[in-house]
């Protein structure tokens, strides 16, 4: 009896493995193409499917020197890390009252936040630019950090408030009875339990800031302040004829994000369970 069930499972797993391989190949294909392009010599017109027999790293050198990718990565890191920290900080404390006390004011604030999540920032680009100029925020790190934080807040408030709803209210009440002040409930009780969703928010907002183009283009104009999306896009402009260098720049733009994900994988899935599904 048990044997038959095991056999079935084994066969199932076999099929699953094959399907998994096919799926992986399909999803990896675009990256394979861009990788193989990046190792080709400029002017190599062979098919995109053929990996160069002797990989050349010239294009990476070109991307690093011309595109200044090194500085760009550091700049992007600074902007992303700071913005994410602020997003977590402001978003979490804001979502506590919004999730716990459904007063009219709180409900209004919450739906305003969620509604704004859908507004494409591009449509308000120029008013924001003028505002930033008058505040003196152009070509400063704090300017872009404040902007990225503001536009990352809705997502974090959304996920945090969903998650806090699943923490039993009794915990709060017990703490109050124990003499905790109501402002202290959050850091003492709620925060330690929020790690999974925090890492979810870190990944989601961090990645979108890392990949942001418009805001960073308009706020960080000086070459030494440039971020990685800008450095990379300079290879895709009109007079460009250097495909491999463009491909190399694209690869380098993607790499750090992949590394981050591999680190935070475990927490990410758990965080999504608790905030998106409950």
């Amino acid at each position, binding site marked *: 009896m048990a044997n038959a069930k095991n056999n079935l499972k084994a066969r199932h797993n076999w099929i*699953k493995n094959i399907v998994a391989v096919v799926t992986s190949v399909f999803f990896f294909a675009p990256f394979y193409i861009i990788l193989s392009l990046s190792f080709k010599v400029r002017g190599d017109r062979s*098919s995109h499917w053929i990996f160069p027999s002797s990989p050349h790293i010239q294009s990476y050198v070109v991307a690093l020197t011309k595109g200044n990718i090194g500085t760009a990565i550091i700049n992007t890191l600074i902007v992303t890390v700071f913005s994410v920290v602020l997003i977590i900080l402001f978003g979490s404390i804001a979502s506590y009252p919004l999730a716990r006390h459904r007063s009219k004011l709180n409900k209004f604030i919450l739906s305003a936040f969620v509604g704004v*999540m*859908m507004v494409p920032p591009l449509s308000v680009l*120029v008013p924001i630019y003028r505002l930033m100029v008058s505040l003196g925020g152009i070509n400063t790190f704090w300017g872009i950090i404040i902007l990225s934080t*503001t536009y990352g807040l809705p997502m974090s408030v959304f996920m945090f408030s969903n998650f806090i709803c699943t923490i039993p209210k009794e915990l709060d009440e017990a703490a109050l009875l124990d003499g905790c002040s109501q402002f202290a409930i959050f850091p003492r009780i709620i925060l330690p339990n929020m790690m999974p969703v925090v890492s979810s928010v870190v990944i989601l907002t961090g990645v979108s800031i890392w990949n942001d183009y418009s805001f960073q283009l308009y706020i960080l104009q000086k070459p030494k302040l440039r971020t990685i999306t800008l450095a990379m896009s300079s290879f895709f402009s009109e007079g460009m004829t250097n495909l491999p260098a463009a491909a190399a720049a694209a690869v380098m733009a993607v790499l750090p994000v992949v590394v981050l994900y591999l680190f935070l994988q475990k927490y990410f899935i758990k965080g999504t369970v608790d905030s998106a599904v409950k």
Partner: protein
Amino acid sequence: MVEAKLKRFSRFLYADPRALTLLTLPAVVLFSVFVVFPIISGLNISFTNWNGYSQSYSYVGIQNYKDLLFNDSVWTAFRNTLVYGLGSTAVQTVLGLGLAMLLVDKFFLRGVTRTIVYIPAMVAQLVIGYIWYFIVTYERGALNDIINLFGVSPIDWMSKGNRAVLIIMLINSIAYCGKTMIIFIAGLESVPNMYHEAASIDGASGWQAFRHITIPLLLPAFTTSLVLNIIGGLKMFGLVIAMTDGGPGYATHSLSSLINTMYFANQRAGFSSAIGIFSFIFIMLVSILLRRYLEYKDQQYNG
């Protein structure tokens, strides 16, 4: 007098739950300054004929809104945005669910496959767009190479407007279905085993169990994915620009990329802001409807 007021205030801070709303202050301040104010400014611009860069402009009343109603490219962009948003939802639901079911239970290649499927979801739209451009392009495109093997002569995939919109929608779905997959995996994992056991004891077949237990319990996951995808469709910009720059003609623009093009390339800042306000109102309607629907479903299951 002052002492009494201070005392009342500290009582308020300590005991009244409404005081907690103060915690939302930093977020709300940032929000009002950098979101609300620019939107109002955009509203103001939509009533002018500003070209976007001069220091002077004049007011033209609701002319821009009238133009909007009769402008072909705006309606094409609107339709495209719906296709990108809803179409992506549909395709991603099927794909995401299928992948989730494949990858929920442990087996040898599960971890690797999950990672490979998810990674494209973290790549910037612009990069994905360029990568896929080199796949679907006519000139030595990767896709054309494949159909060549079957003896079919190369096709210019993106040359027809409707076909191009479909292709962009598919690419958006494929590239970002990793997100949906994760959401569904989370959903599937949260279905307690005892439900399945109870169903099999009652004699339900696999398919019946799926229909009546799994699918209803996946509803929250589905709605999250719906919301995220509609937002994605409305914000679709990088992918369109990288693959077709909105063309051929204006055929593949989304509302977001059209606003950008109208503002900068066409120098019609007033008109572009009007489109922006129009899509903003549309977004508000959609989110209100979604909220109502979610609350209704919530009551259905928990009431």
